[in-house]
């Protein structure tokens, strides 16, 4: 098992900061033909969550036991 030192994590964080600034500056259209995409299941999960999610404050107003 490879051991990572604190310095390795610092480098990783710095790398993440660097890539964020790079990607932030790139136009969105540049990625229209990229092959790096998440699995369709992940996309379906997120979309399903968006449909099912109700903010807690809305649900609490309904009162009583919630049966789904």
């Amino acid at each position, binding site marked *: 098992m490879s051991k990572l030192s604190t310095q390795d994590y610092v480098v990783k964080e710095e790398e993440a900061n660097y890539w964020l600034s790079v*990607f932030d500056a790139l136009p969105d259209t540049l990625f229209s033909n990229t092959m790096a995409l998440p699995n369709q299941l992940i996309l379906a999960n997120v979309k399903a969550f968006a449909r099912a999610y109700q903010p807690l404050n809305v649900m609490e107003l309904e009162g009583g036991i919630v*049966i789904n």
Partner: protein
Amino acid sequence: MEKQTMLSDEQLVKGFVAGDSGSIDVLIERHKAKIFSYILMCVKQQELAEDVFQEAFIRVIRTLKNGRYSDTGKFSSWVMRIAHNLIIDHYRKQKNQSVISNDNYDYDLFNSPRFSDQSIEEEMVKEQVLQSVGQLVNLLPDNQREVVIMRHYRDLSFKEIAEETNVSINTALGRMRYALMNLRRLAEERNISLTLA
């Protein structure tokens, strides 16, 4: 959907907050490649990148639906910033899980009350809380009780729970969510404290 693809990110965000679920689909499709490419560039593992991508969008959806989003720039930059924070959290969690050596310190790291056995009083409180939780779990509707027992007493994953109960993972997650909300409400109604510490 075709008409929505012509809308700006800002219009789609407003549409989603107003209840149009199709708007978030367009936003996800429009920005998935850039956001995922950024995550993958940092973590370099497809599965981990997918986990971060999913969690980032879940946070986006929660923030939007709870009315906590203030439009201060590009939508993709905002989502990438959320993903970035999750990546940093992941690195820090990894760092904290690394091996530590007592030899590097002038004092004994393990000579702490946190590593000692619980006192009889703490054990009794814990036992009482577990007993109360057990009683409340019995008051839940059948399908919610089933998920709680499988998850917390049998330690099954949500994938395993979904397979065993013949429902989707999202349904199993939803049942757990409702179960926890109901448990909290039941505990409040009965003035039961579920705090261990």
